[in-house]
């Protein structure tokens, strides 16, 4: 394929919005959010290693309104990125590469990520 005929990466200004595109952007966005989540995991573990006072402070922050919103966001980001990552692994095997399959599997990823998020938070509140 000559350099001129190679497919161009989408220019957001002129590209018509499509599901596959939105799901792809979402995968990257949740990944970046999760990099922040990894930093919180580090803070949480460091506090736990430091002692009761430090750990209680981090737990209080996690339990605050801002903390809960962040944790909810990270929970959903994790499950979306996880399920969509499995979708990527399926693509890597050469399957589901047509537009229709990519769109349907994207919808399934989003739905599953929401269901799993609700499951975890229900568990946390009910058990």
């Amino acid at each position, binding site marked *: 394929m*000559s*350099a001129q005929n190679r497919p161009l990466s989408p220019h957001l200004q002129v590209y018509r919005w499509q599901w596959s595109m939105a799901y792809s952007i979402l995968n*990257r966005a949740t*990944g*970046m959010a*999760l*990099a922040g989540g*990894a*930093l919180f*995991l*580090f803070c949480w*573990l*460091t506090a*736990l*290693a430091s*002692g*009761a006072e430090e*750990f*209680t402070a981090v*737990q209080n922050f996690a339990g605050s309104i801002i903390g809960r919103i962040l944790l909810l966001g990270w*929970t959903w980001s*994790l499950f979306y990125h*996880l399920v969509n*990552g*499995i979708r*990527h*692994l399926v693509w*890597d095997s050469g399957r589901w590469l047509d537009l229709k399959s990519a769109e349907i599997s994207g919808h399934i990823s989003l739905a599953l990520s929401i269901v799993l998020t609700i499951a*975890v*938070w229900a*568990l*946390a*509140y*009910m*058990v």
Partner: protein
Amino acid sequence: MSLRTPLSEVRGHGSAKDGTHHWWVQRLSGVALIPLTIWFVFSVACMVGSDASLAATVVGSEYVKFSTWAAEPFNATCLILLVATSFHHAQLGVQVVIEDYIHGALRTPLLVAIKLLAVAFAVGGILAVLKIAL
């Protein structure tokens, strides 16, 4: 106009960067994170839920509960794997985002900083787990 074909222009130069290594390690760490993150999220969700009323009354009972949990050999092992794999996977992802969007003088310093920071946070997290467990 050059008479060389496009193929001959690129042939013999080898991979432009690191070939498939980045791609492969990203998949590998991603696969490892599937069980690790599911285990972590559900474990913590179960513990946050249990005796929430007790936690409110006895100061530091949350601390005792979580540090006892993290000190279990199986849990400590999984936590160390989770921390190491998470920061490795995060570094690989952030690297690609920087390569895609950041151009100019900032690019290389940022790529270096992200890599060094990821290692530093991973070591710090692992040390924390070891301190709790040992």
